[in-house]
């Protein structure tokens, strides 16, 4: 192990935020103490926390273990000492995109004691092209302002039509999209319509407005083979290039992962269903890998995410695992 490199990465990833965690913990962590050390006068962000739950992949029927794991995630978020102002659900509520699976997810997620915002994943979408999801959860593209931060949610799992010419049934279409390494569906993205919407959405925002985007998939080319990518990620990054503080938070990868591309800091969330292996690519920040999951512990490698937004818009991102999944490095939190 290269300890010097690890140390460099530690400083790059956690920066002051690593110290603030220690200060916060020692002081019994509250946002007042947290922000005192890092306030950046002149910016209009009030400190707060939000949380993320993602990739529950609920199956049909009662008493599936994934139901319980989503309940664990909800309980974990509801029990956070610092209450999140809202929770993002990052896509893939369902495994097979059926209405009963989505409805089960809605019922379970109703137990959250805070506001919920959602974006879809491919497992939610391809039976009826999002009709049931939209009927239950609303629009798949949205934005809102919260305490000085501009939040954007987009649907990043849209693929070109591969089903009409071959006359695939809705179930066959969904089955093709369900397989991570499925060779049929191809690369997905947000598409022209959402890109146009995004341009208009941020046109009037000043460059010092902190931006947080939520998409199911990462906005950088991590491993396209498994759709660990968004095909129009470069266009999204270009549209948002004027912003000084741009954080992309995504699901889909079922693992801890961190990257920086241009002005974008990208954070991937663990799932509540199962962990995925790291793909065969060289990571810019290999220390952002979690421990190899122990198959003997059925919740190892899973959990939720808490993001502490500080005055000025900088963030400390903390993975909240169900088991002892994090390396000592990850336990310190990541700066965004």
């Amino acid at each position, binding site marked *: 192990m290269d300890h010097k490199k690890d140390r460099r990465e530690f400083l790059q990833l956690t920066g002051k935020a690593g110290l603030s965690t220690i200060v916060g913990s020692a002081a019994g962590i509250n946002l007042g103490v947290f922000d005192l050390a890092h306030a950046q006068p002149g910016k209009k962000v009030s400190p707060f926390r939000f949380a993320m739950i993602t990739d529950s*992949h609920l*199956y*049909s029927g009662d008493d*599936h*273990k994934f139901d319980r794991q989503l309940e664990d995630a909800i309980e974990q978020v509801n029990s956070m000492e610092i209450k999140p102002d809202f929770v993002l659900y990052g896509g893939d509520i369902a*495994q097979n995109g059926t209405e009963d699976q989505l409805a089960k997810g809605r019922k379970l997620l109703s137990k959250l004691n805070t506001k919920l915002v959602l974006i879809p994943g491919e497992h939610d979408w391809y039976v009826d092209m999002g009709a049931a999801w939209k009927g239950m959860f609303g629009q798949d593209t949205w934005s809102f302002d919260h305490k000085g931060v501009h939040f954007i949610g987009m649907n990043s799992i849209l*693929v*070109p039509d*591969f*089903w009409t010419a*071959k006359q*695939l049934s809705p179930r066959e279409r969904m089955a*093709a999209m369900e*397989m*991570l*390494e499925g*060779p*049929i*569906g*191809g*690369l997905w993205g947000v598409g022209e319509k959402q890109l146009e919407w995004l341009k208009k959405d941020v046109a009037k925002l000043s460059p010092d407005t902190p931006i947080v985007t939520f998409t199911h998939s990462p906005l950088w080319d991590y491993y396209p*083979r*498994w759709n660990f990518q968004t095909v129009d990620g470069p266009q999204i990054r270009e549209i948002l290039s004027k912003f000084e503080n741009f954080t992309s938070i995504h699901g889909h990868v079922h693992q801890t992962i961190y990257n920086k591309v241009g002005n974008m800091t990208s954070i991937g969330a663990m799932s509540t269903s*199962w*962990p*995925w*292996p*790291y*793909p*065969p*690519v060289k990571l810019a920040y290999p220390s952002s*890998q979690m*421990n*190899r999951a*122990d*198959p*003997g512990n*059925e919740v190892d490698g899973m959990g939720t995410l808490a993001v502490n937004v500080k005055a000025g818009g900088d963030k400390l991102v903390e993975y909240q695992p169900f088991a002892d999944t994090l390396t000592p490095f990850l336990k310190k939190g990541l700066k965004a």
Partner: protein
Amino acid sequence: MKATFTRTLATALPVIAVAALAAGSAQARDPFSKEELDKQNAKLLELVEQGYNLWHGSNPDMSGNGLACGNCHPDAAASNPQTFPKYIQNMNRVVQWGEMVNWCIQNPQGGKALALESQDMTAMYAYAMNLHRGKPIQPGLASQQTKPIEVKYGKGFPSKPSGIGFDTK
């Protein structure tokens, strides 16, 4: 005594060598022809394809809760057949790869184990090994993150494309 033994050996060696050559020529055959090798490879690929299908849920007995091997192991990643046999803590003994597969089938997947000597298990092994070709053999490796091979397109082994969407190569 020593001189006698050496003389005996000197006499016997050519006889042994001729006998060995004769026996060898009786058992030798020409190297496999291209046609024979193609046929053998086609048989193997048939089994790899069968393993791929099983990996992705073609045998409902292997799952009681909808999960297939492919849920957690896309492109057979982290199934690591090249690291077996190894000690598995849950079982408190050194096991072969097929036993680990059966543990996964019975526990995370809630299904019915395959017979270790079954053709289905051989097919699963053929698929997993195919997707780990070129990886160093490291029996016992258990605690590190491992990386799968990079799959460029299709299923990761020669297979007839579906003709749908991206699957055109």
